[in-house]
C-alpha cells in the first residue's frame, strides 16, 4: 500500500478520514438496438487526508464530483476502487454492525433546508430521531435535555419555543440550523457540509458559517465543507482542495490557495471571483477561452489538459502526480516538476 502523503510530516494517527486512490465511474447506457455506453469518471484516484479539528474545504465547478466524493466518504455510495480510512480503520468492507457504528460517528448537513426536513414531523422529532436510533437506553427526559442543549448550541433560543414547531413555521436560516442540530446531536467525529449556505440569503449565511466554525473551535469536530463559493469556503476552512472533473488538482492552506494559486485551473477560478469593490472592474479580455464541454472519460491524462493554456505533450500521456511543491502545498501539474 502506498504511503499517504502527510501534510505536516506526521503520520496517520492525527487524521480523521483519509482516502487513497478513490475512483468511481458512472456508466451511462444509451440506445436500444445499438447499445452504447459512455463512462464518466466522477472520482479519479482521489487521495486526501482530513485531520482532526480541521475544516477541509472542497471547491470546484458543478459536475466536478464534489458531492460524489462527499457521498463516497460517508459510504452512502459505493466506489469502484480505492480505500477510505476512518480513525485508522479501513471502512471499505464494513457491513452490518460495523457500518452502523460508522454511521453514528459521521454525519451530513445537506444543501437544501427546504426539502431536507420532513414537513409533517416536528422539530423535536426530527432532531431526536438519530439520538433514539443510536442510544436506545436513554430515558425520555434525557432525550429532551439533549435536544434542548443541541438546539441552543446552534443558536436557537429559547429552545423550548422551537421544539413543537413544524418546518413551515421556520425561516430558511432556522431550518438550516435544525439541519445542523440533527447532524451534531450524536456527537459525530466527522461531518460533511454539502453546500450548507448556498440556498440561504446572503444576510443569513454569515451566522450559519459562524456556527460551523464554533463546532470546530469549541467542540473540536472535523468537517469537510463542500462549496462552489470560494470566498465562503476560505472563511471557514483551514485547508482547501480544488477539484476538476473528478481529479484533485491542488491542496493547500486556505490563504495560500487564494493568494498563491499554482495550478492553472485554480488560477482561473480565483481570477473569476467577483470582489465587492467597484475599483476592481473586470477587464473585458476574453482570451480566457470559450466554454468547452469535456467529461473525464477515464483516460490517463490531466483532466484540465483540454482547456489549459500551458498544455504540454506530457499532460496527455500520463496524469500528473501530486507533488509537494512548497511546504503543505500540493499541486498536480507538470509545470512544477
Amino acid at each position, binding site marked *: 500500500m502506498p504511503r499517504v502523503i502527510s501534510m505536516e510530516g506526521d503520520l496517520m494517527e492525527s487524521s480523521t478520514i483519509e482516502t487513497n486512490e478513490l475512483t468511481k465511474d458512472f456508466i451511462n447506457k444509451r440506445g436500444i438496438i445499438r447499445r452504447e455506453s459512455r463512462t464518466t469518471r466522477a472520482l479519479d484516484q482521489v487521495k486526501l487526508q482530513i485531520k482532526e479539528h480541521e475544516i477541509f474545504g472542497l471547491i470546484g465547478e458543478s459536475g466536478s464530483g464534489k458531492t460524489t466524493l462527499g457521498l463516497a466518504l460517508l459510504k452512502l455510495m459505493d466506489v469502484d476502487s480505492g480505500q477510505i480510512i476512518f480513525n485508522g480503520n479501513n471502512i471499505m468492507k464494513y457491513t452490518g454492525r460495523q457500518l452502523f457504528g460508522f454511521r453514528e460517528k459521521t454525519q451530513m448537513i445537506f444543501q437544501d433546508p427546504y426539502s431536507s426536513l420532513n414537513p409533517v414531523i416536528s422539530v423535536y422529532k426530527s432532531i431526536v430521531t438519530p439520538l433514539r436510533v443510536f442510544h436506545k437506553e436513554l430515558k425520555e427526559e434525557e432525550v429532551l435535555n439533549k435536544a434542548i442543549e443541541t438546539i441552543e448550541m446552534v443558536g436557537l433560543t429559547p429552545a423550548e419555543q422551537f421544539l413543537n414547531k413544524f418546518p413551515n413555521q421556520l425561516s430558511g436560516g432556522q431550518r438550516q440550523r435544525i439541519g445542523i442540530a440533527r447532524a451534531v446531536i450524536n456527537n459525530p467525529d466527522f461531518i460533511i457540509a454539502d453546500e450548507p449556505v448556498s440556498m440561504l440569503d446572503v444576510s443569513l449565511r454569515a451566522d450559519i458559517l459562524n456556527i460551523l466554525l464554533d463546532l470546530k473551535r469549541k467542540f473540536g469536530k472535523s468537517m469537510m465543507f463542500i462549496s462552489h463559493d470560494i470566498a465562503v469556503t476560505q472563511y471557514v476552512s483551514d485547508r482547501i482542495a480544488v477539484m476538476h472533473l473528478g481529479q484533485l488538482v491542488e491542496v493547500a492552506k486556505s490563504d495560500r490557495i487564494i493568494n498563491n494559486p499554482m495550478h492553472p485551473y485554480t488560477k482561473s477560478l480565483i481570477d473569476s471571483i467577483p470582489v465587492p469593490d467597484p475599483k476592481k472592474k473586470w477587464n*473585458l479580455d476574453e482570451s480566457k477561452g470559450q466554454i468547452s464541454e469535456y467529461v473525464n472519460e477515464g483516460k490517463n491524462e490531466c483532466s484540465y489538459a483540454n482547456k489549459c493554456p500551458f498544455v504540454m505533450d506530457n499532460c496527455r500521456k500520463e496524469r500528473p502526480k501530486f507533488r509537494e511543491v512548497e511546504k503543505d502545498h500540493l499541486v498536480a501539474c507538470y509545470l512544477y516538476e
Partner: protein
Amino acid sequence: MTTSTIMEVVDLSVDYVLPDRTIKAVSHVSLDVNKGEVIGIVGESGSGKSTLAMTFLKLLEYPGKIKGGKVVYYGSEGKSDVLKMKPSALRKYRWKEVSMIFQSAMNSLNPVMRIEDQMGDVMVEHGYKEDEVDERIDYMLQLAGLTKNVRKSFPHELSGGMKQRVNIALALSCDPKILIADEATTALDVVVQRQILTRLLKLKDDLSISLIFITHDISLVANIADKVNVMYAGKIAESGPSNEIFDSPQHPYTKALLASIPSLEQEKSVKGIRGTPPDLSEEIKGCPFKDRCDSVFDRCKNEVPELKMVSQGHYAACHLYGR
C-alpha cells in the same frame, strides 16, 4: 429625467392579491435607466426585485396586480407607458425594445425544439425575413460565444453555460435597446459566470444597449454595474453610483449586507443580519428594517423613511440622513 433616459419607473407599486391576504411586493419604487448604462438591482429573496423586473415587460400575471405608478419607455416613436400598452403594441415592444434573460434560463428553452427553430420563431415574429433569419442565427450565436454546431442541437444536449448563452443570443436576436438579466448567472459556477458576464458587458459596449442586472450577489454588482439600487422589503433602501455604494454605504441595511460577505482579501469575521425580513402581507409601521437595525431610534418606529439625497446622485431611505 435627462435626454439620455430610455426608461423611467415612476412610483410603482405591485401587490399580490391572494384570497386571504395581500402581499405588497413592490411599493413606491422609482428609478431611471439611461442609454448604455448598467443598472444593478440587489436584494434578498422576497425583496421584490424580480416582480419589479416583470413589470418592465408587463409580464405580471394573476395574482399580481399593479397598484399604481407607471413605467415609461422612451422609444423611437416617442414615449409610452408600458403598463397601458395593448397586446398588439406589447408584442412589438417585447424582444424588440426590451428583452429579458430569465432566472430559470436553464429551463426556459423548449425541450423539443432545435435551437435554430426557437431562435427563428422569435425573429420571424418580429418582422425579419426568412432568408435574413438564417444568417442572423449564426451571427447571434457567434455574438454569444457559441459555434454554429449548436444550431441543430436540442437543449438537453447543451450544458448549463451553453444554454445560458443561447438565452443571451435569443434575448439579443431582435436588437433590443434594454436587456434585463434576472439572476442570469446564479446557477452557474464562477468561471462560466465570468465568461458570460464579460461577453454581456462587451456586447453592451458594442451594441450600445442598457443592461438591468438583477441579483442577490452584491459583489457581482460591484464588478459590473454603474449604478446600484439596493432593495429591501419591496422598497429601494439605497441607490447611487456603485463606487459610492461600496465605498461609503449609508443605509444600515447596505452596511450590514456588505459586512455579511466573506472577503478574499481582508481577514475579517463576517456578521449576519439578525432576524428575518418582514412579512409583506402585514401592514409595516415605520421603517421596514427597524427590527434588524442597530441604529434604530424612536422615529423609525412610526414614520416611513423617504429616499433622501445624501450626496449628488446618492439616495438613502433612512431617518439618519436628511431632514
